[in-house]
């Protein structure tokens, strides 16, 4: 076993060796004397023969066990002591490295999880999300598919080896085990697990038989839900629970990494209503598939488009002909446009690290110049190449290790901020952490940096004699090195400017996004969702009564000014909720024409007043309309633009879906009013979706009327909305103690969440820009200070010859300023050219927004000039005498 207490046995062995060499020395003198040499000469000769006992000892020490360790320890201690003697250098280096390494580690951690490894499924690069565009409707992307199309694909598609259909998040009420709770379930076909290639951590996934109609319901729990609700009880398998009153047996628990389609799903249950015999035209399912081996995504697209068109003759009014498959890799669909940002950021922080290294290298250069004399002395005293290399490498290793450690702490803090700001739909962001890989990454980064930096001074070695001669005079550094320094400054300025412009653009976009009128007033409102168990509320009539009872109870609460309900609120997690083709009375669609596809909501009276959504024409929907089941609808402006261009929509009559499939003969509904557009998928919708509101009919025969088993309530209050949550909960408990509130939040929360991705991107870019700016300024300040020091003699002469201090300062600032201007020019050109890369992330701002360009340039120029001016002022304030003497 190696003994690490080397200092102990080192002393023992050293003493013994000293003794042995003493004896040797004495015997040598004796031998010389016996040979007749006088004592004095004998001693001298012995001394000479002995030369450097120290060297011998050193050599022996090196041969010993643990010597390397011992030496390292010693060198580290010495290096630490040396560095403490120049605290400014050490501090600047450590902080620079910490910032750069920290930023890199943080961004890398995010990129690794979110972009490189977003899907914890087997062979996830072969998974495709089925999406469609509807070119003639100018709809870029629909990811809902009619189940009829799904079965067409399941039977015919040769480019896909597996296919699964699912509905995103459905809220259901869990009862039976403790307090009732609204949980999110995803209804899927049984093929989902095999398509994604995931296996439950416990128990099993549901079988085909369990997913068939008529089978008793089973559920697979998410890991998070299992932990939260069941305290990781392994006995949960086989336990009966109740979902919306439907008895359900838990058959499995998924691993913690499994989060499909998003991380907020609590459980997966079969979708037994999605069968071949019940296949519908309603766009309500999402589909994920697995590419067959050898098939490309392009082949899949063309096949899927063709198979959709093949359905056209069978269902001529459903518009299958208009669909164009835009099947995307699930990876891309999940991560979306933020991947580009993250990659850009990773490159940017990589460049920041390079610049930081360059800055530190500059500091090292300056230091190594100051050390030339010391090194020369060391060499003259017999220090070998190895010793000199060690001398510098230990210093840089120590600095980099400290910087890396602090950087890691910074990264940890930054990650917490990022995760907090992260948009909820970003995959695996919650898993982003400083795990072993990130630690290794940071360690490797620091190591490479240390080696690179440590070897810089070595390149600067000059022969011993020359440097001993030279080092006395602080002669101006060579022209070449000034050029290098200037180049470095310029690059930093350019990089900082590019990042500043990017984050400036993002900031403007964010402001613009937040300034968008969402079509409702988000202040002082609380919203939540309530679902009614089908067992207790079997029909629409009872559901409508219950919703109305809830509205009435809430209205009676103190501080409540208005209450209403809708089957779907704006910006509801990017969900369409419900939509279907719209048919207009007197406008029979010729074969081949496609009816407009609209989103439908059922609302209680006073919804537009409560939301403060402006009614543009006609009227809204009143309570009495709901009570009398008035056959009326209100449409939004987008629907008018699409379905009634240049006409008055008021009084027109409409109905939905394929009339031949409806129960009986569905009634026509009359358009009574037009309201402003409200967003569905995101705050900034270039093409607002056509929407239609109808009263929550209890019994009227309306084809494709939105289901009433769950509604979102909006409560406008004069109090703080959050304070209303508890009274509301109690009031609803009085209606039915089995009802649970889900998604309790304010409309403002909903708006914030909708802007989360933009905010996230902005924060990321701001971090990178801030780090880059800080490092750039520090670097420029350092370089300018050095240049001023080098020119002290010259400045002294100038001052002595009567130069104005102001002129001297100007001269120096000009020297830095010209470099900064060059850097700014390059930076502006780069930002101008690279704007395209982030164009898709911007909103309402051109990637070449002159205001942003001018503002950031001015900011940068100001800061850089300040960084130049401070050393310049110092130079100008020198008294000529001092300046001349200093040299």
């Amino acid at each position: 076993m190696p003994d690490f207490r080397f200092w102990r046995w080192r002393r023992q062995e050293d003493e013994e060796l000293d003794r042995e060499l003493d004896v040797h020395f004495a015997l040598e003198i004796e031998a010389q004397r016996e040979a007749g040499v006088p004592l004095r000469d004998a001693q001298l000769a012995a001394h000479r023969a002995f030369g450097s006992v120290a060297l011998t000892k050193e050599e022996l020490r090196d041969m010993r066990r643990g010597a390397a360790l011992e030496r390292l320890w010693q060198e580290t201690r010495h290096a630490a002591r040396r560095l403490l003697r120049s605290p400014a250098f050490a501090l600047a280096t450590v902080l620079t490295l910490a910032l750069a390494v920290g930023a890199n580690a943080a961004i890398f951690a995010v990129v690794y999880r979110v972009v490189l490894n977003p899907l914890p499924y087997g062979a996830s690069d072969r998974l495709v999300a089925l999406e469609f565009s509807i070119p003639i409707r100018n709809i870029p992307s629909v990811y809902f598919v009619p189940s009829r199309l799904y079965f067409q694909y399941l039977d015919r598609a040769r480019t896909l080896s597996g296919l699964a259909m699912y509905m995103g998040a459905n809220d259901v009420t869990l009862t039976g085990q403790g307090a009732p709770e609204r949980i999110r379930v995803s209804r899927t076909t049984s093929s989902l697990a095999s398509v994604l290639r995931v296996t439950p951590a416990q128990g099993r996934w549901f079988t085909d038989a369990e997913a068939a109609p008529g089978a008793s319901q089973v559920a697979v729990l998410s890991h998070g839900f299992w932990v939260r609700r069941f305290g990781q009880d392994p006995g949960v398998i086989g336990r009966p629970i109740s979902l919306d009153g439907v008895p359900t047996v838990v058959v499995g628990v998924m691993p913690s990494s499994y989060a499909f389609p998003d991380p907020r799903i609590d459980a997966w249950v079969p979708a037994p209503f999605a069968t071949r015999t019940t296949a519908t035209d309603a766009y309500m399912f999402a589909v994920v598939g697995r590419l067959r081996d050898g098939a490309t995504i392009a082949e899949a697209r063309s096949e899927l488009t063709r198979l959709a068109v093949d359905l056209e003759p069978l269902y001529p009014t459903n518009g299958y002909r208009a669909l164009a498959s835009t099947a995307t890799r699930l990876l891309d669909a999940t991560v979306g446009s933020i991947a580009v940002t993250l990659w850009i950021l990773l490159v940017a922080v990589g460049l920041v690290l390079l610049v930081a290294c360059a800055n530190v290298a500059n500091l090292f250069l300056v230091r190594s110049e100051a050390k030339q004399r010391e090194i020369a002395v060391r060499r003259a005293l017999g220090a070998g190449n190895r010793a000199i290399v060690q001398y510098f490498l230990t210093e840089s290793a120590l600095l980099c290790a400290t910087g890396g450690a602090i950087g890691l702490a910074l990264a940890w803090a930054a990650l917490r901020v990022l995760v907090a700001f992260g948009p909820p739909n970003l995959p695996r962001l919650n898993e982003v952490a400083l795990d072993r890989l990130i630690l290794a990454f940071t360690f490797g980064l620091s190591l490479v940096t240390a080696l690179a930096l440590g070897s810089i001074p070595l390149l600067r070695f000059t022969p011993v004699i020359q440097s001993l001669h030279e080092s006395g005079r602080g002669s101006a550094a060579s022209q070449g090195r000034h050029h290098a320094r200037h180049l470095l400054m310029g690059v930093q300025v350019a990089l900082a400017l590019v990042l500043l412009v990017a984050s400036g653009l993002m900031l403007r976009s964010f402001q613009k996004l937040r300034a968008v009128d969402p079509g409702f007033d988000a202040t002082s409102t609380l919203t939540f969702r309530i679902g009614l168990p089908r067992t207790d509320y079997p029909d629409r009539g009872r559901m409508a009564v219950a919703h109305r009872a809830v509205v009435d109870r809430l209205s009676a609460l103190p501080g409540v000014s208005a209450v209403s309900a809708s089957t779907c609120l704006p910006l509801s997690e990017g969900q369409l909720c419900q939509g279907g083709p719209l048919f207009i009375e007197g406008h029979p669609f010729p074969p081949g024409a496609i009816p407009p596809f609209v989103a439908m909501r059922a609302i209680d009276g006073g919804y537009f007043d409560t939301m403060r959504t402006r009614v543009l024409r006609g009227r809204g929907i009143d309570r009495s309309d709901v009570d009398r089941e008035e056959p009326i609808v209100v449409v939004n402006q987008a629907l008018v633009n699409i379905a009634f261009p240049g006409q008055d929509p008021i009084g027109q009559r409409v109905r939905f879906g394929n009339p031949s499939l409806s129960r009986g003969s569905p009634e026509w509904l009359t358009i009574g009013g037009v309201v402003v557009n409200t967003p569905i998928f995101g705050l900034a919708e270039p093409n607002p979706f056509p929407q239609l509101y109808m009263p929550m009919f209890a019994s009227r025969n309306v084809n494709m009327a939105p289901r009433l088993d769950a509604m979102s309530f909006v409560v406008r209050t004069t109090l703080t909305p959050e304070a209303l949550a508890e009274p509301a909960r109690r009031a609803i408990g009085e209606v039915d103690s089995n009802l649970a509130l889900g998604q309790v939040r304010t409309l403002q929360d909903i708006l914030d969440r909708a802007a989360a991705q933009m905010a996230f991107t902005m924060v990321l870019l701001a971090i990178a820009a801030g780090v880059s700016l800080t490092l750039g300024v520090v670097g420029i300040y350092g370089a300018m200070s050095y240049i001023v020091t080098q020119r002290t003699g010259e400045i002294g002469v100038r001052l002595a010859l009567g130069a104005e201090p102001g002129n001297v300062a100007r001269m120096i600032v000009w020297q830095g300023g010209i470099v900064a201007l060059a850097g700014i020019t390059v930076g502006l050109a780069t930002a101008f050219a690279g704007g395209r890369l982030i164009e898709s992330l911007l909103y309402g701002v051109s990637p070449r927004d002159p205001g942003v360009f001018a503002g950031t340039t001015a900011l940068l120029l100001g800061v850089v000039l300040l960084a130049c001016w401070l050393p310049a002022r110092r130079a100008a304030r020198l008294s000529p005498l001092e300046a001349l003497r200093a040299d």
Partner: protein
Amino acid sequence: MPKKAASRVELIHGTLDMLVLRALVFGPLHGHAIATYIQRTSEDVLRVDHGSLYPAIHRLKKRGWIVGSWEPMPDRNREAKYYRLTAAGRKQLTTEHSKWRQLARAIARVMEPA
């Protein structure tokens, strides 16, 4: 480095260890005595300074071919560290000796062909 007398030659690399082992064949010696032995028996051609001697001793010690112990020096009132061959050291000497003999003969044949 002080210049060496012309009559001295540099040791062939690696042979010092063998010479130290050889010096210890007749009994334990201390460091100085080893140096003196080599110098004398080589008729002053080979001179070993402590800078190479002690590292060599250390090497041999580490390999277990010699062991050292502090013992009083005869005729003197002080102790010195005496080294003696171990069994393994003796075997090593035999091996190296025969290897060296082969080498020396081979070199001789090349340099002075009959």
